[in-house]
């Protein structure tokens, strides 16, 4: 039972929680969940494809750091509502409209964590590696990247979990996963069970990602359980 249920007023005809709704609409819920999953994963992957080269570029040409991080910070202040509305005339009713918009938001988190992670490798370690005769590329591949993995993974996890919540807004252009159910439940004379079930499913999906990615972090970098999450 959600703690919410205790607080919210329920009416006989339109309860907030209804197992009946879940069983009779299971197909719809599963389909929405699959769409939600694909949209989330695609957006974060797309963000990563751009974030990693950008992070390397920024580290190579330090002058670019402020403008690149600044620009991704600006993109981040554009309301998702507006971004999706602006992208749909370009990409039409394809999932790309939503994926690109969400990737824009995920980009900042992944990019910033990658840069911070690479930068935080201590000078001593870098010096030692140089002393061993490592070139720049070797240094990156063998020392900096492995040491930065926990921070980078944390960035990916945070971006993923946030994206799960944001996918819902894609309902405006027909690709919103559980968001489509939320919005149509609202339109359908406040279909409480549908709105709340879809919202809870969304949170559940995020919890799954959170746990899964934390496990990945633990496996890939068992030495680095920091106090800060």
């Amino acid at each position, binding site marked *: 039972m959600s703690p919410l249920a205790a607080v919210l007023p329920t009416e006989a005809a339109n309860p907030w929680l209804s197992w009946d709704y879940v069983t009779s609409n299971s197909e719809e819920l599963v389909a929405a969940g699959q*769409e939600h999953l*694909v949209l989330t*994963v695609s957006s974060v992957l797309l963000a990563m494809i751009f974030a990693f080269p950008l992070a390397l570029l920024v580290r190579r040409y330090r002058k670019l750091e402020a403008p690149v991080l600044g620009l991704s910070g600006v993109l981040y202040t554009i309301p998702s509502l507006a971004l999706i509305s602006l992208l749909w005339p370009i990409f*039409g009713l394809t*999932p*790309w409209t939503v994926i690109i918009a969400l990737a824009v938001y995920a980009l900042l988190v992944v990019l910033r964590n990658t840069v911070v992670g690479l930068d935080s490798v201590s000078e001593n370690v870098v010096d030692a590696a140089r002393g061993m005769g490592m070139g720049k590329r070797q240094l990156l591949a063998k020392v900096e990247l492995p040491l930065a993995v926990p921070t980078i993974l944390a960035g990916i996890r945070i971006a993923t979990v946030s994206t799960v919540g944001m996918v819902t807004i894609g309902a405006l252009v027909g690709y919103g996963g559980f968001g489509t159910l939320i919005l149509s439940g609202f339109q359908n004379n406040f279909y409480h069970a549908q709105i709340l079930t879809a919202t809870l499913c969304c949170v559940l999906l995020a919890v799954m990602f959170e746990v899964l990615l934390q496990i990945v972090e633990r496996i890939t970098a068992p030495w680095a359980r920091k106090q800060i999450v």
Partner: protein
Amino acid sequence: MAAAVVALAGCSSSGDDAGGDAGGEEVVIATTNFSETKILASMYQQVLEANGVNASVKELTTREVIIPALQTGEVQATPEYLGSLTEFLNKEANGADAEQVATEDAAATYDEAVRLAEPEDLTLLEPSAAQDQNSFAVTGEFATANNLTTLSDLGTYSQESAITLGGPPECPKRTFCQLGLEEIYNVQVDSFLPLDAGGPLTIQALQQGKVDTGLVFSSSGSVSANDLVVLEDDQGLQPAENILPALYTPAVTDTISEALDSVSQALTTDELQQLNAAVEIDRQSVDQVAEDFLTEKGLLSQ
């Protein structure tokens, strides 16, 4: 990722699915997220499937999103409303200030709509007798207290105390909405609150007294369920809003037209209201409601 996205896109683009049958290209039926159009879209889908045409439903939001997608063939069919669609096409073709061409006369409006739709790659099938007009509603309490039954009454009442009006954001610029109320009924509008087209926002705003009058759809189940009174359009402000299927012309086949025509012919305004109530009040599933109706009318058997 690319594969996943392509798979997802595959739901909406014409199907090159492995399971593609002799029915050929998949017909994607777009719908708004309003129950009524969802029911209609589900009927279209089921009746097409029954006639061997591969069909699916894509839930979108508004006409502004759906019609452009229909014109480019991103989707192939959608349930539409005669008057509103005619004016939408009219504005597209002749600019936002174009003179209104949709009227109370359904036949004349249909001719006009077909003329506007043809060059846009849109095919409009014969309108159904069933209608769902834009209407203006007040709460039962407000109607009784001020003795209102018609829009003319509202015009008279508003001379004393100008009303607050709620409707979709485009309402102040639309003849069917605020402009028509002001011109035809001389309604004095004190302020306009942008809400939605007959959706939950408008209904709540009415109940909470945030607006005196709101735009609703006459056959919506939530109008009666929420104790709202529709004011009679005694001077004929609203055009005919018969339901008709709009199709992407290159996708039209005889089988498709005949199947969809059979739905239009079977449907009446009364039945439409009952179907809406079944979904919006009794919380039956859209597909089930659509299927029951089609079965009762014998449209699912070959």
